[in-house]
């Protein structure tokens, strides 16, 4: 497996090997699937749409709908205006969504399609909406696509009526439906009426009913998005994915925000709960205190097995930072922390976490790839890898225990239904990480050292 990876690390400036990111449009598609009654629309070649739907289907084990402008040679020369016109008509006629969320691709960006004017000129059926976001594949990563699409919705739809709606807005960032459910449960426990945007729960984990709903129950409604401007405040989760949309809502409608790390681990969850408490009139209920207590109890029970264990953590910036924070809380050494997304803010924040816990000899890198991570691991191995499925080749090649988290996870079932956020998510991750370490301990133990009790 990966026999070709040499130990010696040499600087590469042009060649990307084994990426830890993908392109913007898939992020836009995922964000749009978190809006109720929405058809994501890919304005580009057919393959883009097909690839994005495939990777989403593989991760969530759910249908992922999206339509395509199906660019041809003609469109690439004369522009995609007629494609959008035809597409909007066909999509509303045939699939009947309430809203179409168009995102661009590298092709439509490069040929200079002006979606603003195309959409303005559309002749739409009564009550139907088309919004768009520019998501050039050659800028940033899929993470940018996600927040750009959020901003696309907000630019077109948000308003301020002057009458506060008494709600708090929560931008959960790129998480699984199980995570969003958990975040909403916490808001409920704290008695905070909240609008989660976007919200893929109920959409990308739709229950089996024996029939196929193209637009399942879940998703942020158009009304809720409109109402974002009337929210009393905003909790934006994910310091990297949440920053720009939060800033937009503040600039546009003066909605104050707090920008917090993805609530993975004890202290990050504490920060989310504190923000909810500030938005709420109630104190943290005993039930939630107990939940936190159980997590800390677990960390204590298991700390001798995790202390100073070295971890390689990789994936999207906010999830990777959250996992790093939890690993540090578990007494582990997050030896390598990488993301493919080119955001130097990531490196800065990871280094800040290292210093907060006095972890030494750790490397953080944005705009990195898994080939480089593999080389580092070859030079100085780790005890566990935590990240997306694409780490499994390295884990096999170097025989490292592997815990899956983040996007995409293509080779396991059920993970998208359960949280990694909140106290309960941290309990789940702690169980998984400790389990992976102890499974390895048992596997490698000689018969004399093989013990029933650990």
């Amino acid at each position, binding site marked *: 497996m*990966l*026999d*070709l990876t040499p130990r010696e690390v040499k600087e*590469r*400036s*042009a*060649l*990307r*090997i084994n990426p830890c*990111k*993908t*392109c913007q449009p898939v992020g836009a598609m995922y964000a749009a699937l978190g809006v109720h009654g929405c058809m994501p*629309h890919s304005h*580009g*070649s*057919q*393959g*883009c749409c*097909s690839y994005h*739907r*495939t*990777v989403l*289907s593989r991760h*969530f*084990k*759910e*249908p*992922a709908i*999206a*339509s*395509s*402008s*199906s660019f041809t040679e003609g469109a*690439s020369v004369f522009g995609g205006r*007629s494609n959008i016109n035809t*597409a*909007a008509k*066909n*999509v509303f*006629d*045939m*699939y*009947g969504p309430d809203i179409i969320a168009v995102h661009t691709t*590298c*092709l439509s960006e*490069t*040929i200079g399609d002006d979606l603003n004017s195309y959409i303005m000129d559309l002749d739409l059926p009564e009550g139907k909406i088309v919004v768009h976001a520019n998501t*050039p594949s*050659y*800028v940033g990563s899929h993470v940018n696509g996600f927040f750009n699409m959020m901003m696309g919705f907000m630019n077109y739809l948000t308003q301020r009526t002057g009458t506060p709606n008494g709600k708090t807005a929560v931008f959960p960032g790129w998480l699984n439906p199980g995570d969003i459910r958990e975040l909403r449960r916490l808001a409920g426990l704290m008695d905070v009426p909240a609008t989660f945007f976007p919200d893929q729960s109920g959409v990308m984990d739709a229950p089996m*009913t*024996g*029939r*196929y*709903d*193209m637009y399942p129950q879940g998703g942020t409604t158009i009304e809720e998005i409109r109402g974002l401007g009337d929210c009393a405040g905003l909790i934006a989760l994910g310091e990297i994915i949440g920053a720009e949309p939060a800033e937009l809502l503040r600039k546009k409608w003066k909605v104050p925000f707090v920008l917090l790390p993805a609530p993975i681990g004890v202290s990050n969850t504490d920060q989310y709960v504190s923000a909810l408490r500030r938005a709420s009139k109630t104190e943290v209920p005993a039930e939630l205190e107990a939940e936190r207590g159980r997590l800390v109890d677990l960390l204590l029970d298991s700390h001798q097995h995790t202390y100073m264990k070295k971890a390689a953590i990789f994936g999207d910036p906010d999830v990777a930072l959250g996992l790093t924070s939890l690993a540090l809380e578990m007494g582990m050494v997050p030896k390598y922390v990488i993301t*493919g997304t080119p955001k130097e803010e990531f490196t800065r924040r990871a280094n800040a976490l290292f210093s907060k816990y006095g972890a030494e000899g750790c490397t953080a890198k944005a705009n990195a790839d898994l*080939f480089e991570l593999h080389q580092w691991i070859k030079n100085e191995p780790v005890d566990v890898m935590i990240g997306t499925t*694409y780490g499994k080749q390295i884990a096999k090649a170097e025989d490292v225990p592997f815990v899956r988290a983040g996007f995409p996870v*293509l080779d396991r079932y059920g993970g998208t239904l359960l949280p990694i956020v909140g106290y309960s998510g941290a309990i789940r991750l702690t169980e998984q990480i400790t389990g992976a370490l102890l499974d390895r301990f048992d596997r490698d133990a000689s018969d004399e050292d093989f013990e029933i009790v650990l």
Partner: protein
Amino acid sequence: MGTSALSVLEERKSSISNERGRGVCCERESVSGAVSQRACVYCGARVVLNPITDAYHIVHGPIGCASYTWDIRGSLSSDADVYRNSFSTDLRETDIVFGGARKLAAAIDELMEKARPAPRLIFVYATCIVGVIGDDVEAVCREAERKHGARCIPVKAPGFSGTKTQGYKLACDAIMALLGPHRGQPKRFGVNILGDYNLAGEMWIIKGYLEQIGIPAISGITGDSTYESLARAPSAALNVVQCAGSSTYLAERMRDEMGVPWVNVSFFGVEDTVASILRVADALGSPAASAGAREFTARRRAEVLPLLERYKPRLAGKRAAIFVGGGFKAISLMRQFKELGVKTVVVGTQTGRKEEYETIGSLADSGTVILDDANPAELERFMLETRADILVGGVKERPLAYKLGLAFCDHNHERRRPLAGFEGALCFAEEIHKSVRSPVWRHVKGGAS
């Protein structure tokens, strides 16, 4: 809101037939706005070339196309694993403005400097925007060949320049470019197997059959292929074409330019497997191979049929829907379902050709719905109308089938068990059986059983 009540788009009507395929319009572009199941030109090219396991497949373009095609095809290798890595130039905004050719040349240089053993074969896939920004990929590849002495073959595959089928053709041209310098070898007794991608090791099964009846497999194009093995391909006495959609064009070029005749085969289903082995042996004109083939197929057929027979009562009365890439596979699957006593009620392909739809029509019962380039809404509508119990399809169809309460069998690159040959026919029956008879359906409202 469900879509089953929604009407079929006017433009789509000519692509659907329930009169034994009469007049299904195919081989045309998808409608803008359709939730099509189709992929693109790059995808087609990559699918065909990917199983060249010691090649460096460099995607020249923004990162997405490299990410989405990274080690997902399930085509197995007995040797090299270079192809399981993802290489790309990861073009950024500045490259779009100033051109990406220099970055591509630098990427190839970095590869040649650092990869050991030194790469001998590189494919450079130019995706959507490369032509638009004016990169001369051919010149970069020519220069790289001159500089490094490795083969560096451009595959200009912008997604918008046609359908997946166009990508197959580009891949076949790339293979011809690779084989070019090796033509003119003396012919020898043996075959190339074209259009089998060694998914779940199927190429190994087919090669094994041929070798058992004394026919050497010289090269697989492409499945478990290496530069070395491909270079021997022009010496073959016969090309055996498994996936007609992707490889007929290559077979024709090899016939015209290298004097290798070809026959069409399908190793899906017992009857097609038997017929195919006999056809290969007879086409080679070797009485010994023909006799061997008759003995071998009779024996294996007699072994497997009773095993398949056991599934028949358990599948009796079930109704199947088929939605696959190519027409030839759809035809084999219809026959295979017939062998199992299962009625095919819906047949669709992404890229089926006119003559294939005619064959499909001739195999279909009246009332069987036949459709080209279907979208989920159409699939849903027709599967429900025809009360299908199981869908055979690919990754995008699986969750749809489950949502509708249908059993499912992956006949695309997510299959983990071989579905070709005698073993494969048995696996296929097992896979169908496993999904149709799962106790999970007891918990599903309105489910299959």
